[in-house]
């Protein structure tokens, strides 16, 4: 309970709520698109940079085992999501694959919020975790696109979808930030930390203000998604989160690291996946894949998921 409170009454989470309220009362609390885009570039690049510097202080052997676990997780998630959506949800192939792609991939902002949470609690974690975020972003999307292919005719979509995914901005910035952090090391980070490190949580607060607005705007579409998808958007993240913690612990991560891996698995993508899916699976309905991720799973993880997975990780890793 205390864990939840530590998480809920932060400026970040509260700003998310404020953004949602603003949208509800019809206020123009909208950040300019240009600033929203800039903030997301900043956040992703900054987390990559910090990760890279931490990576430069890690040994390959520490990273090898957990990496395998992460890749496995990324590849399998869309498979079982797809199966559930087809069997239990009775969704068509395109919609099932589209939703599976989103839950197979990850939300970097959710991850960033989780890391901020650990920082607040003063809990340590493996510095190379952002590399896992990069690793986990892509395979889920690719596997799901291949699944979709079975139910479609054209081949143009898949190729383009894969290219889009691989050259996507967030991956390139995260990976680029990692490499830059790796190469320039702590001395390099020192020079830029008053820009990329210190103001980070504040920038995240403003970003979440806007996310709240966007998520609230999606709420109207919830009826369209149906009860099954609502349940899916909460139950699957919970299961994925617990599973991620277990995989993390099994591959030797600390409690903090296992928590972060769990949170990553629990999160659903709303930047890379939508763009790729829109191009590769045009017949899938965006309301079905975007609304649950944005209006249910993201706020759920932000508020309940973070303390839940952290509590579980603490209890499990001992």
């Amino acid at each position: 309970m205390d864990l939840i409170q530590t998480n809920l009454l932060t400026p970040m989470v509260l700003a998310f709520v404020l953004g949602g309220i603003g949208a509800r009362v019809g206020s123009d609390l909208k950040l300019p698109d240009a600033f929203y885009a800039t903030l997301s570039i900043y956040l992703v690049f900054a987390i990559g940079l910090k990760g890279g510097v931490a990576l430069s202080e890690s040994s390959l052997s520490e990273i090898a085992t957990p990496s395998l676990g992460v890749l496995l997780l990324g590849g399998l998630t869309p498979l079982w999501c797809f199966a559930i959506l087809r069997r239990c949800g009775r969704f068509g192939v395109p919609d099932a694959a589209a939703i599976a792609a989103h839950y197979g991939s990850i939300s970097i902002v959710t991850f960033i919020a989780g890391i901020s949470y650990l920082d607040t609690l003063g809990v340590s974690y493996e510095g190379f975790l952002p590399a896992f975020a990069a690793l986990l972003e892509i395979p889920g999307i690719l596997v799901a696109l291949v699944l979709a292919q079975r139910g479609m005719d054209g081949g143009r979509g898949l190729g383009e979808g894969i290219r889009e995914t691989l050259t996507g901005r967030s991956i390139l910035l995260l990976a680029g930030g990692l490499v830059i952090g790796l190469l320039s090391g702590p001395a390099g980070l020192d020079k830029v930390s008053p820009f990329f490190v210190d103001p980070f949580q504040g920038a995240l607060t403003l970003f979440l203000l806007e996310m709240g607005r966007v998520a609230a705007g999606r709420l109207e579409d919830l009826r369209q998604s149906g009860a099954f998808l609502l349940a899916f958007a909460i139950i699957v993240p919970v299961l994925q989160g617990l599973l991620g913690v277990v995989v993390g612990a099994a591959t030797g991560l600390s409690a903090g690291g296992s928590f972060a891996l769990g949170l990553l698995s629990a999160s659903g993508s709303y930047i890379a996946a939508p763009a790729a899916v829109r191009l590769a699976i045009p017949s899938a309905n965006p309301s079905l894949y975007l609304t649950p991720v944005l209006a249910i799973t993201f706020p759920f993880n932000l508020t309940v998921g973070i303390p839940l997975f952290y509590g579980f990780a603490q209890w499990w890793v001992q």
Partner: protein
Amino acid sequence: MLTMKVKLITIIAEAVLEERLVRDLRAAGAKGFTRSEVRGEGSRGRRVGDVEGANVRLESLVSPEAADRILETLNENYFEHYAIVAFVEDVTVVRGDKYV
């Protein structure tokens, strides 16, 4: 000063299609085009654009035949599944041979 009639085709579509549409324009024979960022609401409600932030507006001066080819392409590949509208009009230009 010699003026000439050409077609102006304007396409408004969800931003994710931008690069594809540009390629299609070129393939249909457009010699140039202009893009801008717009927001929109249409008959099919809000779309992916919500997250990605915006629609794109492409306008291109083309020959009547190219305009037809572009409409044809849009009709075949996009109108069904994507948030997109397109319209064509007659405009007068100077040095029209640049566009046809």
